[in-house]
């Protein structure tokens, strides 16, 4: 595969442009950083508009309760409190419910019942941040608590009370949807015939992205102009504009969504939260800009969560360890409404990528979505479409199989991998993997970490009673949603876009349909244009996040920016190059066919001194273009990807476990990633470091759990433990390069790979350390309490 890529010119392991141009392959320093390092970023809470008011939210202390009354009279007596908005107010305008991206509906404010702790109950509009908070404290709400369901299995029991009677008598239960993929009968037959069967229950707990900037907005309604400007923390501003137009009835050309700088997203800034809608309603009501900024505790308790998948998996294999079948049954806890942001056809996202990096014929996957008294969602944690859950399950199951049959987990993987010559590979659940070389990535990781020596060390340590484990994860990601035949959100196809304008002086303005939340698009998208057109990166300005100017796009999540908008950028640049060729032919008085393109200029074949640089061509496009040709040098492209892209990698983790405390220490972690051709190696490394840390975090620390009354037990950073620099391992990274054969620049996307790949490596390492004690599975997070209890039960605590 690699040789073929090299021959076709797709493989770009060394830069093709000069360093001064700074195209693909250069670690160009980020163009966005000068403002950030000076404290001059412009995040939503930094923005102050003339006459701006503040909105703060009254939230429910109960997970399920009837609202018997709301008394705002004391709040309204506070000087500076201008209004208190309740569900009854919204009901008059039909705005008390809003649609979710998943086709369910969500309360903006309740009229009679609250469904989870910290749900929005009323909004206070005031002249300052502090007075709004005073108003919230003074609103009296009379609640009558109702029974609570936090366990999705109990929620499915026939006698469970119905959480969502609004769905009507036909749906008098708490089951949201059933989704399945693969061949049930064929898989049952293969499973029955399997010489070895292993099964396990794996729970992937509810977690929260907790970007360091919380969510917020300023809604600015100008009644005279009929213009709504919504400044907000959104990863998908165009989609927000369209949803707002559909829900509010405002004409879409009079809605402008602007994102400014965003302090981390990770998927948590894709959904529409009630706070945004309340600010819009408040601004429409009072005719002034209204700002809403979430507190951290509101963010952790009410915004969309991720995961919460209860997975039962069964793997069939031969005695020698060749996998033959996989069967998976999953219960997905969506809280009180399905507010996931999956593409319409995929209520469980791309969870059926669960066959992973392995070649076998029979797989069947089913998922049931369930309501509980928890916040809505099923959204993202640096992986939007359930790939993390899938990879976790298959990588755990493969490890359990290896341990059960006494085969080294690395060898078992090598023997089951899809081989490089099998790509494009059709999986038993219907996906087509575009490219890969799994044995090469795993072998590189094994070599980097010194696997054989570590296994020897493990045996020596075990003989001394010390607990050391080694865990592997060889994951396949599936990103770049997506091809229009399969992928849409609310009917809008998941294309993405770029518009490039070359100015007469040879400087470039490009606007993209995706957003950046720290990925560095102002730099990397400039590098794509530099690669294609030869303009230096310094001469290219990238804009995004203003729906009045940027071309329509579906936004940044699911690692789709480079696979989709990156492709659009390359194609738009190539359209400009095509027009440039015509202009060059005119200037050089040569035939187009006689021109060749190298290093940012067209030269006449055989006469390299006869040439025109792209800058000269840009000037001519406005001053001396051929007769009959439109002036200007601009292009736009809306890119519909022919397929998804499949980044992959192999990770190896070494852990030591303290027998006295149950503390797990990640001693080493080697990550070999393959994201195809690399635009900016420095930025890719940074994405992998960050992704690994967000894989490490839920493996050892993070979980949003609830008591039986539905109280959130991790609603602040005191209880929801983000890793600090002290715990975070010193990541060791390596790479292989297997370009995507269908992507214009052979890239694949990288933002989420490490978050997807890391948890099973850590989980496998910890179970590996304890396997000889009879431990088969421990669900993440692998907290000291959990591990110590196991050690204590096994009688091996120090």
């Amino acid at each position: 595969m690699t040789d073929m890529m090299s021959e076709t010119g797709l493989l770009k392991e060394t830069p093709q442009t000069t360093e001064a141009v700074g195209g693909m392959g250069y670690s160009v320093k980020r163009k966005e950083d000068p403002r950030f390092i000076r404290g001059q970023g412009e995040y939503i809470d930094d923005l102050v508009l003339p006459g701006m008011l503040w909105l703060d939210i009254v939230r429910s202390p109960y997970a399920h309760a009837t609202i018997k009354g709301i008394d705002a009279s004391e709040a309204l007596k506070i000087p500076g409190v201008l209004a208190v908005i309740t569900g009854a107010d919204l009901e008059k305008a039909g705005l008390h419910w809003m649609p979710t991206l998943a086709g369910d509906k969500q309360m903006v404010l309740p009229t009679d019942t609250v469904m989870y702790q910290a749900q929005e109950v009323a909004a206070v509009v005031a002249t300052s941040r502090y007075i709004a908070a005073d108003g919230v404290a003074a609103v009296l709400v009379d609640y009558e608590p109702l029974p609570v369901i936090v366990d999705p299995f109990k929620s499915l029991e026939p006698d469970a009370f119905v959480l969502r009677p609004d769905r009507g008598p036909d749906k008098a239960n708490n089951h949201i949807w059933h989704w399945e993929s693969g061949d049930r009968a064929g898989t049952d037959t293969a499973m029955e015939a399997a010489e070895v069967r292993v099964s396990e229950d794996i729970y992937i707990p509810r977690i929260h992205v907790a970007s360091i900037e919380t969510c917020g907005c300023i809604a600015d309604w100008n009644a005279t102009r009929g213009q709504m400007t919504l400044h907000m923390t959104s990863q998908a501003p165009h989609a927000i504009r369209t949803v707002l137009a559909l829900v509010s009835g405002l004409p879409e050309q009079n809605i402008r969504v602007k994102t400014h700088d965003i302090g981390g997203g990770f998927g948590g800034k894709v959904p529409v939260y009630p706070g945004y809608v309340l600010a819009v309603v408040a601004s429409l009501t009072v005719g002034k800009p209204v700002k809403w900024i979430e507190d951290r505790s509101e963010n952790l308790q009410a915004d969309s969560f991720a995961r919460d998948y209860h997975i039962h998996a069964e793997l069939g294999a031969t005695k020698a360890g060749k996998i033959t079948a996989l069967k998976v049954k999953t219960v997905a806890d969506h809280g009180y409404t399905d507010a996931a942001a999956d593409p319409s056809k995929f209520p469980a996202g791309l969870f059926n990528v669960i066959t992973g990096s392995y070649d076998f014929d029979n797989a069947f996957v089913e998922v049931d979505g369930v309501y509980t008294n928890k916040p809505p969602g099923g959204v993202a944690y640096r992986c939007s479409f359930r790939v993390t859950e899938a990879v976790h399950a298959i990588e755990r199951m493969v490890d359990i199989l290896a341990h059960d049959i006494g085969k080294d987990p690395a060898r078992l993987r090598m023997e089951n991998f899809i081989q490089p010559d099998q790509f494009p590979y059709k999986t038993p659940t219907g996906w087509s993997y575009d490219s890969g070389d799994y044995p090469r990535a795993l072998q590189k990781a094994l070599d980097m970490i010194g696997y054989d020596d570590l296994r020897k060390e493990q045996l020596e340590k075990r003989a001394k009673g010390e607990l050391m484990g080694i865990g592997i994860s060889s994951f396949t990601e599936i990103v770049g949603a997506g091809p229009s035949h399969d992928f849409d959100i609310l009917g809008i196809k998941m294309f993405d876009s770029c518009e490039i304008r070359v100015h007469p002086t040879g400087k470039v303005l490009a606007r993209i349909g995706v957003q950046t939340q720290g990925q560095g698009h102002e730099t990397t998208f400039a590098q794509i244009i530099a690669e294609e057109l030869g303009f230096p990166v310094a001469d290219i300005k990238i804009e995004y996040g203003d729906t009045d100017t940027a071309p329509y796009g579906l936004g940044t999540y699911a690692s789709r920016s480079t696979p989709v908008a990156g492709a659009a950028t390359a194609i738009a640049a190539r359209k400009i190059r095509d027009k440039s060729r015509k202009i060059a032919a005119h200037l050089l008085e040569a035939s187009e066919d006689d021109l060749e393109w190298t290093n940012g200029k067209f030269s006449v074949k055989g006469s390299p001194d006869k040439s025109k640089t792209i800058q000269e061509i840009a000037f001519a496009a406005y001053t001396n273009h051929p007769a009959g040709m439109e002036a200007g040098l601009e292009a736009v492209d809306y890119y519909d990807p022919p397929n998804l892209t499949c980044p992959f990698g192999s990770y190896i983790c070494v852990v030591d476990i303290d027998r006295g405390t149950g503390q797990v220490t990640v001693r080493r972690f080697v990550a070999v990633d393959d994201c195809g051709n690399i635009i900016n190696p420095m930025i890719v490394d940074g994405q992998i470091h960050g992704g690994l840390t967000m894989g490490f975090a839920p493996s050892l620390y993070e979980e949003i759990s609830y008591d039986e009354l539905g109280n959130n037990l991790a609603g602040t950073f005191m209880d929801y433990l983000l890793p600090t620099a002290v715990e975070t391992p010193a990541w060791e990274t390596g790479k292989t390069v297997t370009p995507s054969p269908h992507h214009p620049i052979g890239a694949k996307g990288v933002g989420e790979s490490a978050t997807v790949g890391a948890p099973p490596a850590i989980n496998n390492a910890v179970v590996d350390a304890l396997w000889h004690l009879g431990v088969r599975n421990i669900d993440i997070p692998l907290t000291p309490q959990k591990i110590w209890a196991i050690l204590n039960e096994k009688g091996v605590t120090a």
Partner: protein
Amino acid sequence: MTTQHIELTVNGQVREADVEPRLLLVHLLRDVFEMTGTHIGCDTSNCGACTVLVDGESAKSCTMLAVSAEGRSIKTIEGMADGATLHALQQAFWDQHGLQCGFCTPGMIMQASWLLARNPDPTDMEIREGIAGNLCRCTGYVNIVKAIEQAATELRAPASTDAPAEPAAAS
């Protein structure tokens, strides 16, 4: 609304304001003085996005009242660069890709400046412990540690009137 008059120094400039006694220092800086480089990332003093220096000591400005800053000297991210010349820490964070979304960066730089003032030659673990009160969700800390190491090296070099050293290779 009862207010109290305060006078303090911010980045070398004497500033005055009439503030409610409950006003947090971070809101004084951001909302009253319009210096928005100091950020707010939590409500439990865990994240450190609001870190500033108060009389040279690192402080989480979300956990200090503005009135407690009376007569004291505050340094924020806006006071780090000398005109067009970046502070060694700012330059190093840029060189080493020590930031992604940039939201934790001002607090991280202020905390690192406090650390390097106390310990000009920290080990890797001393750096990690020194910034343990500052959360970053994007970088995995690897390049933040590298950036602080680069700045420490540069700040330890003998004082010179020359232009800042050439940045280290970024990759």
